[in-house]
């Protein structure tokens, strides 16, 4: 029998161990303890976040599938739903960035097709230390390579994403991946195992020792010295196997052969079988002797917790088993019946006829204790001021060029060119064409738009307002494309929640997220939590990443972020109240993070975004681009670069000049261009200042005197600052 000490080494507390003994009425054996330790890990049980997550709104008129299944989904009309979810693969990526990021993509794709949706898009959300650090460059290069390798090979376009570079991610990078899928509403499949006597079939890759201990060790422990001994657990992805698995799963579904379907993710067979049994309120018998193995001599507990990739589990009626196996054979996917649905409400593990573990399913899935957090706002700043890279008295032109070249603002083209954004022939707006990616839907003029956003530094300044800003920036991106938000997914990347200051960040951020969602009537359809993102240097910036899917009535009118027509008027629209503290310029100057951001009138922002969206949908605007990092002038410069055309603008003089030009308030300001008449009509619905005119080969700014005159070529050169990282 394993000891309490071993249970603790597996990540359980002594109290949790006692509770397990109580629940099963005896001491757990090795198989049972391995399974419990994973099912009761932070990763599977959400024991430090579940209570908080319950405060998020999960109802909405267009909701098709809420949190709880492998992915959530929204109704996009004509009987179609779009499923989506974002998930973290931070710690595996810190250990082995190429495979970590690749398997992160593989995992989120399986969540999508596990509910019967065909994956149609991937987005990535990345955080690294400053690119001046060789380690950050290595992580960036390999994570991007891994995402591209997997997504490109499986034939799902990667249509968007985001990347930020900040010191606090130096030792703990973030790699979050989001996927979208398309399905007929009536053909979604659930993961609930039902039908006593039905067969349980494992199909896909064989099982090896990959990721053994991964879920409890890699996903829930702080990284630090001695990481090397965690390394043999690295999982390697095989996108070719995933592609076959995907096509095979969808064909099984189409032929009506599946009673239930579930992917194998963290904690492998343990969590997938326990979840299926729990949802169906049944028991499951699993014979590990029938699991195809890649390595000799694997122990039963190893088979139960292996995180080998590219595997699925399904329930099938015995009479249909042969047909199911034939479809798997056609796709060259190995499949084997490994067990059966029972009425025992227990997960029973067998080796042949011998029973080697028996655990009540409710104990595994529902009985892990949920903890209240001890919350305390920090008395002083948690994060050091960033190192200054720009002198305080730099001229507006110097500031503009420095910002345009700053790692957080420079063009992401060297990243997204490594991703296939076109496969599947739905892409209407690719990266850098619009603020949100836009996909056409089948057999209709309608389409969807999607964006993923979240600035950890802003959240570090003010977790409540920063989280609201993440939502607003995302909805602003959708508005610029002409899309109305339908549903939201999120990934909460935070430090150790057992520390009161981190607990405060988490609590405040979730409160902000919930308030923003309610203000926008957008339900949270699902998400993911990644805690303990800390290193010896301290915690990461608190980083809630928000992904929103919206709809457009007419994809042919999807918005563009770049100016398109010489002679158009340029305006700033929206209740934009820029401020410098916490801005990208403040970072370049090396300013301390402020304790708090300016409050936002969310209702006013929503009204403004609706006006922008309506104007885009009506075809009134030539371009629309939200004012984000770097402020107004950076947004104007981005619109120039996006359309390869200059602009001449004028702003009022005054003491506040730098704040006007470079101050930030995410999601509330928009740089729009169009005819004078169109902008006047927009001005009737939202506050709007005409700034100048589109045209020429330069960006020219005057404010009583000539302040800026830079050519497009100069801007383009500065904006290309990330290219050398991928030379």
């Amino acid at each position, binding site marked *: 029998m394993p000891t309490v000490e071993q249970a603790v080494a597996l990540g359980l507390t002594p109290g949790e161990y006692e509770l397990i003994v109580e629940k099963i009425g005896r001491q757990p054996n090795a198989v049972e303890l391995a399974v419990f330790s994973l099912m009761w890990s932070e990763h599977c049980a959400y024991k430090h976040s579940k209570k908080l997550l319950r405060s998020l709104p999960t109802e909405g008129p267009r909701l098709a599938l809420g949190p709880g299944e492998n992915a959530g989904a929204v109704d996009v009309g004509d009987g179609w739903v779009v499923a989506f979810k974002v998930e973290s693969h931070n710690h595996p990526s810190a250990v082995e960035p190429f495979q970590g990021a690749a398997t992160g993509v593989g995992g989120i794709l399986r969540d999508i097709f596990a509910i019967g949706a065909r994956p149609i898009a991937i987005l990535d959300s990345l955080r690294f230390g400053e690119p001046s650090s060789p380690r950050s460059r290595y992580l960036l290069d390999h994570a991007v*390579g891994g995402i*591209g*390798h997997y997504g*490109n*090979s*499986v*034939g799902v376009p990667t249509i968007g994403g985001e990347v930020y570079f900040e010191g606090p991610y130096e030792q703990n990078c973030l790699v979050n991946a989001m996927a979208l899928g398309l399905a007929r509403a009536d053909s979604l499949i659930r993961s609930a195992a039902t039908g006593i006597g039905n067969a349980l079939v494992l199909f896909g890759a064989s099982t090896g020792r990959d990721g053994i201990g991964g879920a409890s060790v890699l996903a829930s422990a702080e990284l630090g010295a001695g990481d090397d001994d965690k390394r043999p657990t690295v999982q390697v992805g*095989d*996108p*070719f*196997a995933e*592609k*076959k698995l995907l096509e095979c799963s969808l064909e099984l579904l189409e032929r009506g052969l599946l009673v239930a379907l579930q992917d194998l993710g963290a904690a492998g067979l343990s969590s997938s079988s326990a979840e299926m049994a729990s949802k169906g309120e049944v028991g499951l018998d699993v014979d590990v002797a029938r699991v195809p193995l890649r390595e000799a001599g694997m122990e039963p507990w190893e088979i139960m917790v292996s995180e080998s990739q590219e595997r699925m589990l399904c329930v099938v009626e015995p009479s249909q088993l042969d047909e199911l196996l034939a479809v798997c054979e*056609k*796709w*060259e996917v190995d499949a084997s019946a490994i067990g059966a649905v029972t009425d025992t409400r227990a997960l029973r593990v067998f080796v042949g006829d011998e029973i080697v573990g028996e655990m009540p399913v409710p104990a595994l899935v529902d009985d892990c204790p949920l903890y209240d957090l001890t919350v305390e706002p920090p008395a002083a700043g948690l994060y050091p001021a960033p190192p200054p890279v720009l002198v305080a008295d730099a001229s507006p032109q110097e500031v503009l060029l420095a910002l345009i070249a700053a790692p957080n603002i420079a063009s992401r083209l060297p990243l*997204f*060119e*490594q*991703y*296939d*954004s*076109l*496969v*599947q*022939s739905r*892409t*209407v707006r690719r990266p850098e064409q619009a603020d949100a990616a836009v996909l*056409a839907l089948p057999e209709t003029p309608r389409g969807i738009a999607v964006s993923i956003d979240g600035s950890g530094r802003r959240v570090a300044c003010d977790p409540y307002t920063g989280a609201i800003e993440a939502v607003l920036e995302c909805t602003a991106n959708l508005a610029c494309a002409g899309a109305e938000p339908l549903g939201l997914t999120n990934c909460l990347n935070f430090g150790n929640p057992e520390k009161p200051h981190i607990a405060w960040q988490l609590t405040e951020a979730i409160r902000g997220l919930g308030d923003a969602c309610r203000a926008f009537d957008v339900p949270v359809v699902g998400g993911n939590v990644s805690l303990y993102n800390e290193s010896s240097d301290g915690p990461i910036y608190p980083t809630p990443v928000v992904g929103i899917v919206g709809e457009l009535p007419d*994809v*042919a009118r999807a918005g563009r972020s770049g100016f398109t027509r010489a002679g158009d008027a340029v305006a700033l629209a929206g209740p934009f109240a820029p401020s410098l503290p916490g801005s990208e310029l403040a970072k370049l100057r090396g300013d301390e993070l402020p304790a708090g951001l300016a409050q936002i009138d969310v209702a006013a922002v929503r009204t403004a975004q609706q006006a922008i969206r309506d104007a885009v949908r009506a075809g009134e605007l030539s371009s629309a681009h939200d004012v984000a990092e770097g402020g107004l002038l950076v947004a104007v410069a981005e619109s120039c670069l996006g359309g390869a055309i200059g602009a001449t603008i004028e702003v009022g003089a005054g003491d506040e000049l730098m704040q006007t030009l470079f101050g930030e308030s995410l999601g509330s300001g928009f740089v729009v261009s169009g005819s004078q008449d169109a902008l006047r009509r927009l001005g009737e619905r939202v506050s709007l200042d005409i700034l100048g005119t589109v045209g020429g080969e330069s960006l020219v700014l005057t404010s009583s005197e000539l302040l800026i005159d830079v050519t497009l070529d100069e801007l383009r050169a500065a904006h290309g600052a990330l290219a050398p990282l*991928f*030379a």
Partner: protein
Amino acid sequence: MRFGVVRFPGSCDDVDALLACQRVPGASAQLLWHGDADLHGVEAVVIPGGFSYGDYLRVGAIARFSPVMESVIRFAEAGGLVLGICNGFQVLCEAGLLPGALLPNVNRRFICRQVNVEVVRARMPFSADMADGEVLSIPVKHTSGRYYAPAAVLESLEADGQIVLRYAHDANPNGSSNDIAGVTNAAGNVFGLMPHPEHAVEPLSGSVDGLKIFTSMAHAHG
């Protein structure tokens, strides 16, 4: 015109190619399963893009041995029109239906980019609807697209007019010899190219230049 689009395990742009073929007026298109040697009477074969067999070992190396390829080889030898796009181009080179080979891009990375390609030789079966010197905007997306052939082969390709498409000035994304983007066999009935014409057939995508390759095939077939 009845197009057949081959589907290997790991094909990704098969449905895209199918949809592109179906845009050709009067044409129909169907998928051809790799394990089925029967071409089901199609009048032209498209080997689509993707990562057949994961592109493991060497791009296109494993796919060329599938049952359907045996039939495609016979079909090509009998004069049938065969178009290979990206991974399909790689497969046709490996199968010996086209000269040369495709090597890893000079920058070793996957590149997804809209590029300009110049029509070097119009009025061929795959360029019937184009004019010499015309510039087409078509995306590339690949990791191994650097066309290579020994110097003597390159010379004869140039001399015999087998080079149909070249990357426009400064647009060579991968280091291909002589900026070659697409070549035919000596008989002119087998054509391989790295750019993806099936991703330039819909106005919403920004370009419809790629459709000309599919309509050319239909016209050449008569």
